[in-house]
């Protein structure tokens, strides 16, 4: 959409890089231990969640803070369907989970998306908390805090390739949406919601759509994680950490971009692993610090830096530290 002309070559470079990466990701499992594969799978699942969040938080500009609600919903729906008398196979169960999440997101979104910034964020946070409590107390269905155990499946490759397939699908879906009228509507809403309304956009419907989509992505991520993890509990699958990870990943990579969420998920996973091994106990502290630094210095994430670097490399733009700092100064109050 708002692509500067003259990035044609840059786009080819980006495409080529992505292709190389994709091939790399496809052959990866041959060279990795099961443990490392787990990390890569986690990165892909995070990328999936981030892609979904990007639709409502990035393109549409509504910072939902409770998408873990749909992650958990997907996890439980998938698990319970697989464990039910029907013994629904994994993928159909997964899709049911996604559909259900989308539906519930639409229902919740209708009242909640009318709220302004902070209130929307906290309301969605509240929804996530409420879902956790419901999962905890609705013993008859969810077995409460003891949780449920899905059928066992141990081949890491299965989860890895499934997650990879979904991420690729996610990228294609994002491209399609962004190019469509829906994508324009979303960005218009983020630009100026009143103007968007007066331009003929049904903002409520569009917001609900974005929210529902984000829920579906999260639900699929939840189902995958549930199956891989085997054991599903409310505490584990409704924790705020997941929401934060998907938001931070999107921010690191670049909100409102197609590959930003995937890039950000990769960077986050890398950082997280590195920090975990180096700082074990202070791991959250360092992550907190990283969040803070990104927010202050790189609020639009790495994607603009990458595209900017391509332009610098082509000699079209001079590298300016000023630009980086200008962003920081712009948000200060004097």
């Amino acid at each position, binding site marked *: 959409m708002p692509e500067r002309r003259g990035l044609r070559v840059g786009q080819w470079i980006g495409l080529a890089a992505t292709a190389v990466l994709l091939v790399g990701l496809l052959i990866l499992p041959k060279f990795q231990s099961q443990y490392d594969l787990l990390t890569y799978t986690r990165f892909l699942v995070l990328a999936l969640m981030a892609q979904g969040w990007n639709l409502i*938080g990035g393109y549409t*500009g509504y*910072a939902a*803070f409770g998408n873990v609600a749909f992650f958990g919903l997907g996890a439980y729906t998938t698990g319970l369907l697989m464990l039910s008398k029907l013994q629904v196979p994994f993928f159909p169960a997964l899709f049911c989970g996604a559909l259900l999440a989308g539906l519930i997101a639409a229902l919740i979104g209708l*009242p*909640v*998306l*009318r*709220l*302004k*910034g*902070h*209130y*929307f*964020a*906290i*309301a969605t*946070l*509240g*929804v996530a*908390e*409420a879902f956790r*409590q*419901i999962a*905890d*107390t609705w013993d008859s269905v969810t077995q409460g805090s003891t949780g449920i155990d899905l059928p066992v499946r141990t081949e890491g490759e299965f989860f890895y390739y499934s997650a990879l397939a979904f991420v690729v699908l996610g990228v294609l879906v994002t491209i399609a949406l962004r190019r469509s009228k829906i994508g324009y509507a979303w960005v218009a809403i983020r630009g100026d*919601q009143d103007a968007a309304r007066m331009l003929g956009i049904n903002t409520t419907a569009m917001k609900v759509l974005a929210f529902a989509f984000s829920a579906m992505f999260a639900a699929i991520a939840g189902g995958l994680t549930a199956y891989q993890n085997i054991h599903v509990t409310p505490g584990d699958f409704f924790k705020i950490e997941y929401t*934060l990870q998907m*938001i*931070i990943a999107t*921010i690191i990579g670049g909100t409102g971009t197609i590959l930003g969420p995937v890039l950000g998920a990769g960077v986050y996973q890398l950082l997280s692993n590195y920090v975990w091994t180096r700082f074990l*106990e*202070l*791991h*959250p*502290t360092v*992550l*907190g*610090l*990283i*969040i*803070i630094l990104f*927010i*202050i210095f790189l*609020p639009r994430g790495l994607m603009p830096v990458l595209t900017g670097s391509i332009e610098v490399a082509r000699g079209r733009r001079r590298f300016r530290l000023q630009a980086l700092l200008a962003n*920081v100064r*712009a*948000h*200060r*109050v*004097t």
Partner: protein
Amino acid sequence: MNPTEFGQIAVNAVLLSGILALVALGFSLVWGIMNIVNLSHGAFVVLGAYLTFFLHELVGLDPFVTIPIVMFALFLLGFGVQQVLINQVIRAPLLATFLLTFGLEILIVNLVNYFFKADLRSVTTRYTGTGMSLGPLRIPYIRLAALGISLLLVAVTAAFLKSTRQGRAIRATGMDIDAARLTGVKVAQIYALTFAIGASLAGGAGSLLSMIVPFDPNLGETYTQRAFVICVLGGLGDVGNVILGAILYAFVDVFVGARLPEMSQAFTFGVLVLLLVLRPQGIAGKKLYA
């Protein structure tokens, strides 16, 4: 529910509302004046609690005596945090401030966890557990004192906001920042002052809490949430609103907590969402709609 049970719950609610008002006041000031929803507010409460704990343990100070020290220390900390961090994102979009303060919360809580470990602590003195009996109802002295001190601090803050030059400058900035600037108010200073006051009040609340409940580094999270709900309930208008919101919330929280402890959070948030959707301006105050 028999009258005694109800009475005790009511007493507990009233006693709790003082501290809640104190926590919510700092939060609402930062929100109302600076338009920052400070997700690390609870972390300052935690710091206050730990500071009192260690002053009591190491130096032997009576916890009540530590309160002014803690409040001063947190005032300085808040000032510093605002200047170095918060100030960078004041005019950034909401998500940025949200995440920044959240990152800060993770940072502070985890640091506390690292240095002081996650064991439950509490401040006990020779007068812990003493109380008076009003018929069948029990009123612990410490909680009563906490209520008194909270209300005192709230009143002092209110008086400060109303009668001093700085206080009026703060209010003016909250009402119309451009107009305030035109009348010579140095907005940057006011913001730093406001945030510092918010941190200070939070610290004070933490000190009081350390004497009342067992605490660990995660104490703060629930208080940030509660502060938020109280602000939504009462609206961001003025101190009176905060007190009103605190009392209302305390009653609902204690009452629901007694009957449906497992569902209390879901219930609270359900009420919150309902409130936001149906009556966006709270009981009185600024509108919240998009």
